[in-house]
């Protein structure tokens, strides 16, 4: 692992009186699959919204590839190499899977060319080539999640922020999603993953950041995290074996 592709210092977000994220530091090493976990309402999605520009920071700084993001518009963050798969899959319902992915391939880089090849490659990585001509509103939840990943990958990012890609999936779909995220990483993309499914998180992540009530609680390897007394107390409630399947 080399230096951080994305880093945050003192990242804070307040909504009027409520502090959603408070003084969080993070460094996402290039090439990693990084995990972000925490109980419901801990601020995971808020943190992703701050990074991708859907919400402005109250204070602190986020740097992407060494450059401060500041007030950079959302589409520029994507064109700079940051992609996001949303927690609630948001397909373009009236379009086919291929067209959905093509949008990412077309606009993800200002110099977009060979849209069809890029889209085909993204569909292959996500494992949805067979669905290419299906309309997006005819997909299952599991297929929609993979479409979400394919569309993000088609923008040719260096960092993929995946917000609960396994939520609502059955075990075999979850296993497929884990495979899909691994193949994304194999193409050289750093992955930052929010996930509730502890089995998925611990099996796939190199490092995990735990937040609780907007604050950083712990950071370390999966083995360190599941053994951390503070994490067990706040999040797992019990050692991993007992908590498995109950999280979320």
């Amino acid at each position, binding site marked *: 692992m080399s230096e951080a592709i994305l880093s945050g210092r003192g990242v804070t977000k307040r909504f009027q009186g409520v502090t959603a994220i408070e003084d969080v530091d993070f460094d996402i090493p290039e090439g990693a699959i990084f995990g972000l976990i925490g109980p419901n309402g801990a601020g995971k999605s808020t943190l992703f919204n701050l990074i*991708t520009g*859907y919400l402005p920071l109250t204070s602190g700084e986020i740097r992407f590839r060494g450059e401060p993001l500041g007030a950079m*518009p*959302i*589409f520029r963050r*994507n*064109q700079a190499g940051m*992609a*996001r798969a*949303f927690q609630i899959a*948001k*397909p*373009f*319902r*009236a*379009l086919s899977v*291929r*067209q959905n992915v*093509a*949008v*990412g391939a*077309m*606009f*993800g*880089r200002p110099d*977009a060319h060979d*849209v*069809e090849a890029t889209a085909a490659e993204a569909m292959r990585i996500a494992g949805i080539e067979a669905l290419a001509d299906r309309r997006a*509103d*005819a*997909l*299952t*939840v599991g*297929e*929609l999640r993979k479409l979400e990943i394919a*569309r*993000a990958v*088609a*923008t040719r990012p260096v960092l993929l922020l995946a917000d609960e890609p396994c939520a609502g999936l059955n075990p075999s779909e979850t296993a497929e999603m884990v495979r899909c995220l691994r193949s994304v990483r194999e193409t050289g993309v750093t992955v930052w993953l929010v996930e509730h499914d502890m089995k998925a998180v611990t099996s796939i992540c190199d490092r995990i950041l735990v937040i609780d009530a907007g604050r950083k609680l712990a950071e370390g390897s999966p083995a360190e995290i599941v053994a951390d007394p503070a994490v067990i107390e706040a999040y797992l409630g019990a050692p991993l074996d007992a908590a498995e399947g109950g999280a979320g």
Partner: protein
Amino acid sequence: MTRPARPLAVFAALVAAVAVALAPEALGPFHIRVLQFFFFSAALATAWNLLGGYAGYWSFGHMAFIGIGAFAAAHYAMAFGGGGAGPASMIAPVAVGALSAGGVALVIAYPLLRLRGIYFAIAMLGVSQIAAELTNNVGVLKGGIGVFLPSPTPAGMPPERFFYYLFAVLLGLCLLIAWAIRRTRFGYALLAIREDEDTAMMLGVATERWKIAAFVLSATLTGTAGAIYGYSLGYFTTYSVFRLDFSLNMIVFCLIGGIGTLWGPTIGAALLLFLTQVLLSRFLDVHLMITGALVVATVLLMPGGILRAVGELPRLRPKREGGT
């Protein structure tokens, strides 16, 4: 992602062009006027559809651009027209009308397009009322007493026939632009914005820029139609061009025919105008009521418009797998 133009479509377009060119030989002035108004209406609806149908930003106030186009053309012609006549005398005033409408759209685009859904629609309604009242009440704009445009009709040609051809060419131009957009990144950007604007941003779509482009293009085409309409009237006041029913008809034609499709606005305009101007003209007491009932019935029974309803006939049972 683009398909090559099908030879059949090109052939159909040629046949349509020849039919449009020859039709006035067989028709009387009344039917030529009906068709002239149809071309005008279909061109407006197609222009509206670029923003409302493609990008999902419904404007309730597109009459603003008809009026601005007409008034700008008239004031330019009155100030610099030099009294020339003939079709060539229209070029500069119509261009000024089109660019004025586009220019106004460009100025108001940034603040207005930050609004979404019904808020944008209502803001446009407000803009159109303000534009109408300005021409009506600001003395130099002469909307209250009326403005003139000299007749551009070539000697020996009936005016209805001249404007019939002019509006037919305008509709052809609007359709060509609408068709071309669909095949470019511009078209995909608008589709993505309509489907989910927040997601589109995260896929690198510069949503603001594309929305403004669609708005300005739509307004420019509407302004062009407005300027030519002004010429067809010859003399007009504020309320002959700033007509609320124009704003509404653009939306209704798109809804009836198929919003967001290439041919929907034209088909909607054809059906509704044929119905109201030709079939129901014998029942003047009730024709508006019947028209209203038909609009309601179409929207209820075929929410995607006639074009989509016909397109879905072969697959009435949609193949959907699983739940979403």
